[in-house]
């Protein structure tokens, strides 16, 4: 069964550095998402992306964050000037065309900011 893949599984970065998290969505999916989950807390929506542009974003997704689909298969989340509070699991999700299609998630990247 096709799945969303994310790399790396664990990223350790010094505070203030930039980090890029990578995702390969399911191949026939057209909608892409990033979520984060701080340890012990809820899964939180960050951003949705469709047709090469952001369709919706949360208050968390400020100028520190950006997303890109650099080619036909990858979807990336860039975090600039990382802070300690950016430490979390970051999940990528994708879904097919259709309002009633569910989002399918990858296994996440654990980001640790030192």
């Amino acid at each position: 069964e096709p799945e969303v893949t994310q790399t790396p599984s664990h990223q350790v970065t010094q505070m203030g550095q930039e980090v890029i998290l990578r995702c390969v969505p399911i191949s026939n999916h057209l909608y892409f998402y990033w979520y984060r989950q701080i340890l012990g807390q809820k899964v939180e929506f960050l951003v949705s992306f469709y047709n090469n542009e952001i369709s919706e974003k949360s208050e968390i997704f400020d100028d520190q964050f950006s997303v890109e689909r650099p080619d036909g298969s990858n979807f990336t989340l860039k975090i600039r000037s990382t802070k300690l509070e950016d430490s979390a699991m970051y999940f990528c999700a994708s879904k097919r065309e259709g309002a009633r299609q569910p989002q399918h998630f990858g296994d996440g990247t654990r980001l640790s900011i030192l």
Partner: protein
Amino acid sequence: EDQVTQSPEALRLQEGESSSLNCSYTVSGLRGLFWYRQDPGKGPEFLFTLYSAGEEKEKERLKATLTKKESFLHITAPKPEDSATYLCAVQEQADKVIFGPGTSLSVIP
């Protein structure tokens, strides 16, 4: 404010002991309610989508139901491999999905 709550926070069952998990939501216009299973260190795994009050979906030992204000995930004769955190999520707008805090289920052999 749109909100999704789940109860109980944690549930411990003996193998074979059936029970239900609750998800309550307050959104202005429900487009869909989703149940996911999350194992430690993994991403949410899709289980069910429900769209309208009265709808029910089943998969093996799990059955999800929906009313206008809440959803239930019924677990019949659970097995240890059903142990996981069960997440409820609500879609209100086109793309944004709001997750509840989850119910951590432990099934003891």
